């Protein structure tokens, strides 16, 4: 299945591995930050709701 990359196998594989890795990290960071902010906001809104009765 893997194409024959010949003498440039290292360069091509490196380019794909680094790029996909960076995009993966970016997506992970956006997801984690979104989850953390949503959770914190929910906590604050719950606290606010309880205080207002």
């Amino acid at each position, binding site marked *: 299945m893997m194409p024959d990359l*010949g003498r*440039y196998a290292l*360069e*091509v594989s*490196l*380019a794909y591995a*680094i*790029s996909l890795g*960076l995009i993966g990290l970016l997506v992970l960071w956006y997801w984690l930050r979104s989850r953390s902010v949503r959770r914190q906001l929910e906590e604050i809104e719950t606290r606010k709701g309880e205080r207002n009765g």
Partner: protein
Amino acid sequence: MASFWEYANPLKFMRTTDWLLPVVTWAAVIVTTVGLVWGFFFTPDDFRQGSTVKIIFLHVPAAMMAINIWVMMLVASLIWLIRRHHVSALAAKAAAPIGVTMTLIGLITGAVWGQPMWGTWWAWDPRLTSFLILFLFYLGYIALWAAIEDPDTGADLTAVLCIVGSVFAVLSRYAAIFWSQGLHQGASLSLAPGTRVDWAYKAPLYISMVGFGLVFLALLLAGTRTEIRARRMKALVTRERMA
């Protein structure tokens, strides 16, 4: 039809992106996968560049997005400065980490491609240099947002930085034309007559470009939603402290 400016309302933006975000995310995953799998597995080697031509499916879309994202940030910043819509300032803030990643991918894939083709990882070529400066502007932009406590002041100052940095976004795109020197070639894809890239490469390349555009859009929508929530959180905490 709803006015474009209605989406400047955070509530309207959140409601619309509730259904839009999953659609864009799936489209991004499918289109990017098709483009990259086609490019990596099913394109022939170039007669001169060998298999390194496969790097084009990452390098060109990433470089294109690096510049386009800065232009999008510029438009959003101008909207903020002129009309004071918070969503536009938050969208510009959310776009910056995507832009810096795309610029980094453009720089790294360019170096990895340049080494076997040019015999060097790096050269102080006009396009490469202006791209490196654009990368530094992205870092500066992100750092400036992080350094300023007041969100409105942060939005004002980063908007000004964005306008200044736009010079380098434009230079990155046209440097190879302005100065006919350096190692980097001119535009690979052009509407001008005379084919530069064969359709065997052009078709998956266009798909990858659309895919990267959709990845940006999906992350932008998700990031802007997070920034809207973070801003609301900050406002609630401030109100709590003052009560």
